[in-house]
Structures are given as C-alpha cells and as structure tokens.
C-alpha cells in the first residue's frame, strides 16, 4: 500500500482527487446508515457503472478525433479541421450522421441474430473496464481472479462477431467472421501465456495485485519479461483487428469483414466498441507491463488515474503508429506467426518465470539483487529468441534478396534477359534476403 503519511490528512476526504473512489465510499457508508445492504451494493454498482460509462463516452469521441488527427499527421494531411475548433466536433457530427442514416438489413439476413450483435458487442467492451484498477482502491470490482475475468470476458466478444458475420448472409461478412474467430482463438493462447508469466511470477491473479507487486518490487514487468510484453502487445492488436493484423475486416480483401452489412448507427456501435476496446487494451498493457497507476512514487503526488491514463495514452499512440505504418499480414502468415513464434516464445517465458519464482521464493534470493540480474538475463534471452526466430522461421521466398538490375544496352527478349541476369556486377538495387 502507498505510504501517504505526509498528506494523510486529506486521505479519504471527498475532495481528495487522487482517489475518486472516496466519493463512492462515502455515499455507500451514508446509505448503510439507514438503508438495507442490498440497496447500498446496487447503488454502488450503478454509480461505478455510470462513472465508467460517463468517462468512456466522451473519451471515445475524443479518441476518434485523436486517432484521425494522428493518422493524418503520419500521412501529411490535416485531418478533420472543419467542425468545431481544430475539428474537435467532427466525431459528434459523424455520430449525428450515423444516427440519422437509414438502418438497412439484407432481406435474407437472420433478423434476430442480425440485430443483436451491435448491442451485445458492448457488453464485454464495458465489462472489461470493471476490473481495471485506476488506483490502489479505484476499481469497480477488484476480483481475486481478475486476470481470468479479463480473458473470459474478452473471449466472449468473438461470439458476437461470429453472430454478426453469420447473420448478415454475406460472403464477405462470413469470411470476416470466420477469420475473426480463428484469429481470436489462436491469439488468445499467447495472450494467456503472457499473462500466465506475470501470474506465476507475482503469485497473484488479481490485477491490482500485479500492479502492487510491481510497486513493491520497484520494477515494471516489461523490463523483466520484454518478450511477453511484446507478444501481448501483438496478440492484443490482433484481437483488436488493427493493422497489421486486421484480416477480419481487411478492407482491400473482404470490404469490411463481419460488419459489411451494418449501416448507420449499427456500424457506429461496432466502430465505437472497437475504439473503446483499443483504449481498454492499452490500459491493460499499461497496467500489466508498465506498472499501471504506479510510477516510482509519483503516484503519491499525482492522482493515480492520471498516471494510468498517461501510460495508456503512450501505448495507444504506439497502436496508432503501427497501424499507420505497417501493411497487413496474410491470414496464414498471421496464424503461423501466432503458433510458430508467439506461442513458443511466451511458453518459454512461462518456464523462465517458474524457475525464477522458485529461486526467489524457495531459495530465498534477495530481490534487490536478483531482480536486476533476472531482468538482464531475460532481455538477453528475448533478444536471442527473436534473432533465432528471424533466422529459422523465415519463409523460403524471403531468403533470397530481391534484385533490380539495369538492362543497359541489352534490350530484347529472353536472350537479352539471360545476358542481363548473367552479369557479374552488383545489381543496382538489392533488398531483403538473409
């Protein structure tokens, strides 16, 4: 627990912004004075949900603007700049447009299942927020199986995507849904393994417990398990359908994937949930691997939720960056990458975590000495694993470099082609290859 001795006088007061939970706690205690227990817990739950929804809604609108602006800057454009100051109201205008648009449904669609997904997709998207710790005591539900809860809830989203794709009665949508399901099932494995590393090493399944472990040991997990962090980042971006892993809604192949047939606000809901999921996944990456609300004592002075939001923003920017820069992988390549690269790598670090945990607990190594050594060892091991993978698992066509030669005076057909190819001199351009 944070030692707040110096400013202990304000701790727990309603105006202590470092812990917004205080307000809710005070209300609960007040109700408990006169009302029944169940009323207190219901009101607490409703307040927490309202708090989260009240944050998510506006945040999503701002995020749309941020993402479009940042991507636009990558692409040397201005981005939205017409509606409102600096285009800030553009997402609002978009939302109004989407709401006013006609909601079309294919005649051959399975009506009930077609209408449900845009609503259902919100449930896991919102539920996940419930276990995110914004501060030492600031989470709606601090489950002691928080990590499992996170995985369970995010796993159900795939069912909704499948419903959307199947009910649309559209081949693109079905392709998108099948790809989404296949990818989601595959990438859950490295995700689970990466989190298992943390769970094994910190000895707790509570998300807040993992943050507190990092605080206690004065180390963030990305330093201890960098490869798990990278694997988790990539797996998460795959689950989020973001480039380079957005095959389930690959625009250039299957138009929009599972939400091809959704128009108007139904599409808007999918879009909003996708952005919201991106945000919450960034927050969880920040929580698991970057120390969450804790930042080497700064959390005593700055509200912990501000720290978390700052870290989330950094991860979110990284997600936008990869999306703006990289092309998309093919389905088989994406699956192959998951099973051939991410799963072995994360599995390796689960074993490493077991061994190191045993050294710390059973052998009683001193953490202040052992953790830096382990960090250095793990980073070296990660680098080695990445290098090994780059050497071994490269597909055959990529092992040869692509060469561009200049024909010079040899102009013609096959004979000239042979002469150009047989030249000894260095090709004008040579890229790739081992």
């Amino acid at each position: 627990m944070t030692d707040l001795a110096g400013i202990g006088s304000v701790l727990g007061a309603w105006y202590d912004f470092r812990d917004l939970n205080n307000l809710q706690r005070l209300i609960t205690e007040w109700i408990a004075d006169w009302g029944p227990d169940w009323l207190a817990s219901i009101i607490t739950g409703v307040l927490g949900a309202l708090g989260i929804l009240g944050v998510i809604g506006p945040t999503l609108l701002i995020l749309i603007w941020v993402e479009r602006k940042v991507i636009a800057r990558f692409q040397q454009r201005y981005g939205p700049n017409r509606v409102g100051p600096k285009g800030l109201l553009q997402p609002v205008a978009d939302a109004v447009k989407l709401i006013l648009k006609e909601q079309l449904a294919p005649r051959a669609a399975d009506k009930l299942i077609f209408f449900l997904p845009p609503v259902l997709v919100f449930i896991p998207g919102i539920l996940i927020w419930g276990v995110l710790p914004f501060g030492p005591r600031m989470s709606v539900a601090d489950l002691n199986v928080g990590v499992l809860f996170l995985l369970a809830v995010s796993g159900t989203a795939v069912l909704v995507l499948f419903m959307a794709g199947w009910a649309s009665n559209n081949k693109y949508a079905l392709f998108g849904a099948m790809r989404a399901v296949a990818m989601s099932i595959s990438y859950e494995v490295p995700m689970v393994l990466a989190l298992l590393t943390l769970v094994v090493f910190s000895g707790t399944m509570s998300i807040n417990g993992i943050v507190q472990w990092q605080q206690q040991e004065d180390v963030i997990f990305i330093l201890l398990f960098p490869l798990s962090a990278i694997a988790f980042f990539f797996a998460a971006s795959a689950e989020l359908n973001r480039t380079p892993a957005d095959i389930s809604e690959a625009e250039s192949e299957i138009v929009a994937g599972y939400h091809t047939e959704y128009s108007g606000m139904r599409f808007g809901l999918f879009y909003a949930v996708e952005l919201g999921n991106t945000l919450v996944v960034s927050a969880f990456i920040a929580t698991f691997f970057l120390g969450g609300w804790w930042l080497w004592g700064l959390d005593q002075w700055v509200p912990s939720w501000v720290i978390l939001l700052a870290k989330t923003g950094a991860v979110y920017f990284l997600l936008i960056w990869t999306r703006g820069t990289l092309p998309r992988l093919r389905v088989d390549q994406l699956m192959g990458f998951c099973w051939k690269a991410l799963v072995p790598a994360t599995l390796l670090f689960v074993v490493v975590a077991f061994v190191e945990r045993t050294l710390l607990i059973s052998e009683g190594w001193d953490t202040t000495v052992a953790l830096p050594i382990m960090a250095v060892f793990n980073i070296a091991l990660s680098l080695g694993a990445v290098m090994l993978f780059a050497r071994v698992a490269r597909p055959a066509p990529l092992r040869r470099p692509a060469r561009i030669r200049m024909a010079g005076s040899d102009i013609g057909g096959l004979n000239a082609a042979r002469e150009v190819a047989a030249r000894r001199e260095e090709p004008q351009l040579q890229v790739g290859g081992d």
Partner: protein
Amino acid sequence: MTMSDDTRLAMQGTIEALTSGDGSEPVVVNLGPQHPSTHGVFRLKVTLDGEIVQDAEMRIGYLHRSMEKLAEERTYTQNIPFTDRIDYLAAMSNNLAYCLAAEELLGVEVPPRANAIRVMFAELQRVASHAMANGTFINDCGAWHTPLFHMFRDRERVLDMFEMTCGARLTTNYMRIGGVAFDLPDELLPTLEQFLADMPENIANYEALLLENEILHARARGVGVISPEMAINSSLSGPVLRATGVPWDLRKANPYCGYESYEFDVPVGEQGDCFDRFLVRMAEVKESLRILRQVVDTLPDGPYLADLPLHARPEPGESYARVESPRGELGFYLVSDGGPAPYRFHCRPPSLINLSALKEMSIGGTLADAIVTLGSIDIVVGEIDR
C-alpha cells in the same frame, strides 16, 4: 412424408460437395464491380476453397464507352480528347501514342521543341502514374493509406504542372497532331526544377519506409509469380514484363520523340513476383527523373506545333504506333480511307492485355494474394473497357 424444397436443395448440395472430391463446397466470391481494391468497376469472380483461389474469372465492360466506334465518327483532332479518357491516369501517354499514330498516317514532321515537351510530359506522367500504382499497391497489401498519401503528394505536384500548362489535371488533351497544344508557361520550368530537386529525398523516404519492410516482403515476395517465357507468350508488357527480367522497353527498343538522345536505363527484376513489379516501378521513377533532368537542360527553342491544317485528311493507309506508357506497351492502330475521320481506330490497351495471365498468377494463392497480384499489375479500368 415429404421434405421441404429447401431441405431437398440443401441435400443435393451436400451430395454434390461429397462427390466432388474432398467433401467441401467451393465458395464463389465476387470481388467487384464495387470493391475497395479493384481500382474501378472491375469484377473478379474467384472460386475459393477456404482461402485458396481455385479459379479466377474476370468480368469487365462496366465502363465500356465504345470509344473505338465513336472515334470513327470524329476527325483525327477531335479524337484526341477520347484518348485522355482511355487511360485517365496516364492521359499524356495516351495523347502521345494516338498523335504518333496519326502523324505517321499524315506524314507530319514534329518540331524538336515539341518532341522535348512531349518527352517531358510523358515522363512526368510516368512519375505520377507510378506514384499512384505503388501507393495503391501498398494499400492492397493492407497498409493504412500512409504510403499512398505520401506518393499522392508527388502526384499532386505533377498534376499542378499539368494544370499550369494546359489547364487540366487529369484529362489533359495536351498533345496535338504535329506537336503540343500550348508552349510551356514561364512558371513551369522553375516548378519542375523544384520538383526535381525535391524528389530524390522523397524517394529515399519511401525506400526507407518500404523496401526493407518485412511484412511487405512477406506479402509480395513469391506472390503472383510469372516466368519470362509465359509473360512474353501472354503479351504482357511494361513493368509486369520487366519484373520477370525481360529488358523490353519501347523507349529503348523503338525510340520515339527523340528518346534515343537521352541517357537512361531500363530496370529489370529477377523473379517476376509482385514485389519485383513494385521495385521496377520505384526504379523507373528514378530513371524518369533522370530523363526529365536532361530534357530541362537541353530544351530546344523553336515552334511547338507543326504547321498543319486543323482537319487534315490523310491518304488511305494504316499506321500502328506504340509508346511505353506507364502500364506497358500502348499502341494505336489507325486505318484511313482518305476521309476526315479514321476508318478504324483501335487501341492496344496494356491494362487489358496485362490481365491475360491474371488467372494463372492467382490460382493456388490465397484470396489476399489475388488482390495483391491484381494491384501489382496496375490496371486502369477505363483502358480495359474503353
């Protein structure tokens, strides 16, 4: 006891699937006519086994405007605007090819300044067209428009120069039989100088972003491969042919407009896959800039248009003129019966003929590969359908 029709049909489908081999039904997916990556109203009907393409059949004609028929009703000069609309991403090259064919028919001598201006604009057009081709190709590989927008910036500057010179950006209608429509405006050459000065850095940026990109390599290497023999037999031309290693470039093989006096090289690939096509285009842009540099340095003075009656009637006969357009060998075959309008007006469209081997290139790959292959061929539907 009777089944419903639906049940019966479904059972029949099952029987068909079971007897057809591996117990699975192939899925037919229509890519297009409205699809984000068919670059226009082009329809590719692919038969898929899972994600693997079993058959790819193209359906075209959605943009057919019967230009060859219309051209038989208009005079030789009136036909020039048609050629803009054939390949609207390389209007200058199309203008040029048609004018060359008409000049051959009429026996016109083109002044040297006009030739230099023609080369200048044909090469600018190549830069613009390749920017578009490479940008959309990376987009087809799944990039989130970033390289496309960067390359569009270069294209915009070229189009600005077109606008400066002839008032139009896309459908330029600039070439004339015997020369070009207008002389260069005063502000063009400084703009072009600035463009030539900026481009090397831009290209270096693109190369830094794209050439060593592992994902791009994984997507485009070994995809859509075609052998040089097959490419020649399929009449492929342009970057698609050169990517297989065949050094065939009409600017070298059959120089027109004085290309023989400029120093440039023909880049050729090695493996004939999508990535080589992309690289060949990148390299060709550099060569085009080399030519532009020389054109600017040696731009002769003199008339920009040969002295020619507006509606000249050629002698009966025929002509076939070809240029190396950004997409490949662009030819115009004209037949004259001595009248004011061509008796027969035929365009050899490189976009259409480069699609000859699309089926062979796509079969056996995945759906995503077929899209990348289509993008690497760089089609313009206006030219396919005419």
